């Protein structure tokens, strides 16, 4: 790599005193600007009677939060309220990443399908979603689509226990009964056994050359053993169904419309981008590769798994990494429809005590950390799983 870098910039290396001096000047100017901004800020904060520092994090927040993953009430501290926001951001981003990936893969495959209608529908989906601002999509879902749903009293029941209404979506809540911990242990053991069988099958296939259905066998072991354990421990999972009482549903898992809109919007928007990555990945694999594999009599499923996917993913993964990062950043649009994510809660705190510098600093620190983790994780995946060269 150092070779290409050297040839790419011939004669532009900086070794002399003149350039060292000019760099020192640049640094001094930048530091000078930072100093002026800093003193200005101090002066302005003093003028407006705004405190500085992070002591406010311990003060009582007094702000209500509509949707929290952890126990929260307004007497908790600002720091705790901000944590609620961080968790909400992470939660909605995580779910959106999972669903957007699934939908995106479908859309990408549909785009290159031989089925004309399917390819056209997928193309229209991609071209529509990608050419609209996400904020517009969110507003549309929030105030047109979800608002058109019926009142909870007349909620649409999709399947038993799943209700759609304009106040939100309601799902059955799984509840752990007696014997759940034994069942959980058994299930984990079954998972380990299944994975163990898969690994063994792979090495067996390598050693003997004889086929051994590792994935399906392992999955079978896991499913059958888990099912047996479930029956043996006396069905330790029950579900609490949402019930309409008074003016709204009680019990069950409730999904507020704000959360649902944000999740749906993020998924639809990002899936369009991921679909394009998948499409360009598939199209980047030369047709000769597939034809050669087919000519050798390799089955279609194996061609897809062993020839098409590994090469397509090399194109798809890096682009999708960027889309995941954008998704996390886009989740900040929550503030526009009132889902209490980190930006929304932080914005409320700024409104209350004016400590914008601290809050904006905290936002940036959290987002930069999340981005760093995503790119580290995806780089690892890229290096370890996808770039297996001979």
């Amino acid at each position, binding site marked *: 790599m150092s070779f290409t870098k050297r*040839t*790419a*910039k*011939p*004669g*532009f290396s*900086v070794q002399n005193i003149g*350039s060292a001096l*000019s*760099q*020192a000047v*640049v*640094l001094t100017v*930048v530091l000078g600007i930072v100093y002026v*901004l800093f003193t*200005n*800020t101090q*002066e*302005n*904060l003093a*003028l407006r009677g705004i405190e500085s520092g992070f002591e406010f994090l311990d003060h009582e927040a007094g702000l209500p939060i509509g949707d929290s993953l952890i126990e929260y009430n307004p007497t908790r501290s600002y720091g705790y309220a901000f944590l609620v926001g961080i968790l909400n951001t992470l939660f909605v981003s995580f779910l959106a990443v999972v669903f957007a990936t699934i939908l995106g893969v479908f859309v990408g495959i549909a785009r290159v*399908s*031989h*089925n*004309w*209608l*399917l390819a056209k*529908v997928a193309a229209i989906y991609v*071209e*529509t979603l*990608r*050419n*609209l*601002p*996400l*904020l*517009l999509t969110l*507003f*549309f879902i929030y*105030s*047109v689509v979800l*608002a058109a749903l019926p009142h909870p009293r007349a909620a649409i029941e999709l399947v038993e226990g799943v209700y759609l209404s304009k106040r939100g979506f309601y799902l059955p809540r799984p509840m752990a009964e007696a014997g759940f911990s034994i069942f959980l242990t058994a299930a984990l053991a079954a998972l380990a056994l299944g994975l163990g069988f898969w690994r063994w099958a792979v090495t067996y296939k390598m050693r003997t050359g004889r086929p051994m259905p590792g994935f399906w066998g392992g999955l079978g072991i896991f499913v059958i053993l888990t099912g047996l354990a479930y029956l043996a421990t006396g069905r330790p999972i029950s579900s609490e169904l949402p019930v309409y009482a008074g003016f709204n549903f009680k019990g069950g898992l409730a999904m507020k419309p704000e959360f649902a809109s944000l999740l749906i919007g993020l998924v639809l928007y990002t899936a369009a981008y991921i679909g394009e990555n998948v499409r360009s990945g598939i199209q980047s694999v030369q047709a000769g590769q597939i034809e050669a594999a087919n000519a050798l009599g390799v089955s279609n499923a194996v061609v897809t798994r062993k020839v098409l996917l590994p090469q397509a993913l090399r194109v798809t993964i890096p682009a999708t990494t960027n889309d995941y990062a954008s998704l996390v*950043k*886009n989740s*900040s*649009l929550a*503030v*526009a429809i009132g889902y209490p994510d980190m*930006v929304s809660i932080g*914005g409320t705190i*700024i409104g209350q005590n004016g400590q*914008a*510098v601290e809050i*904006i600093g905290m*936002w*940036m620190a959290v*987002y*930069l950390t999340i*981005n*760093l983790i995503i790119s580290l994780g995806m780089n690892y995946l890229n290096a370890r799983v996808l770039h297996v060269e001979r």
Partner: protein
Amino acid sequence: MDDNTIIFQPAPARPAPSSRVGPRAWLRANLFGGWKDTVVTLILLAILALTLPGLVDWMFVRATFFGDADNCRQAGGACWPFIVDKFNVLMMGVYPQELGWRPAVCAIALIVLAALTYTNRVRGIVLIVAWAILPVFALFMIGGAFGMREVDQSLWGGLMLSIMLALVGVIVSIPLGVLLALGRYYGPPVVKSLCVAFIELLRGVPLITILFMASVMMPLFLPPDLVINNLLRIQIAMILFSAAYMAEVVRGGLQAIPAGQTEAALALGVSRARTIAFIVVPQALRHVLPPLVGRCIALFKDTSLVIIVGLLDFLGMIKNASLDTTWLGFQAEAYVFAAFVYWLICYSLSLYGRELERRGPSAQKR
């Protein structure tokens, strides 16, 4: 040559079998290839049959095109008079109605220039100068100069504001992005690390946090007696944000220029600065024109976020209009209209991007 020479005359080709050509073959190849294809096609047709007629019915058949809110409520379909009634507000916000011709002139100038650019009638330095002058002209026209009545920036809004934010943002952020990319690629260590820090910081955080920074934090940074209005602060934020992304696009172009280009220039005795300015950058920009257009689309979509910091751009006006009590209950129409306008602008830009890709350097190589 005697007359008995037989010239070989192949028999005319037989027509392809009917199973290979014609609409039936097309249907079989593209829609009903096998049982899986058939199932997918039927499911999609069923979904379309369930949704499309209702949509067409709402948008056109039962829709009201002339009349007032009561006519709309009786008809039950889409209410397009609502959009007509709000059209001026959606286009230019609370800008004085009687001065509406000024933004209109700018819009016509923009459309003409865009058409000339798309058809490749204007090119090179003239094109760049024209696009650089346009936003300045628009600022003077809309704000009031040359002895025209001044219109305060707090009155700017609607689609006009969205386009202004995007246009000024793009035109200022591209040169800034080029400088940042050059700093990152060729700069000495201190400059390089400053550029990297700036680019990565801005790319790592959501635009909203930067807009909040501009609207809440920037007043704190400035000397107490210096007041910059909200619109300008937000415009600056959008420029800086966009510049960070532009810089990364341009850097990709810089990396695509073979080392031989700079080596040849230096060997001929061209100075470093001139090599970069006249040999590397123009070629690099040519390489990255399509992704630069992509960034323009992204920036235009991002202008919708200014609603969160209190500017009433196109989407903001749409939202406002949908809360008007006279026209209550016609939100869907407002958003459908907004979607149509945003889509039209973004999609034509992306068509232009594809056109550039077709004309571009990588296409010529093939």
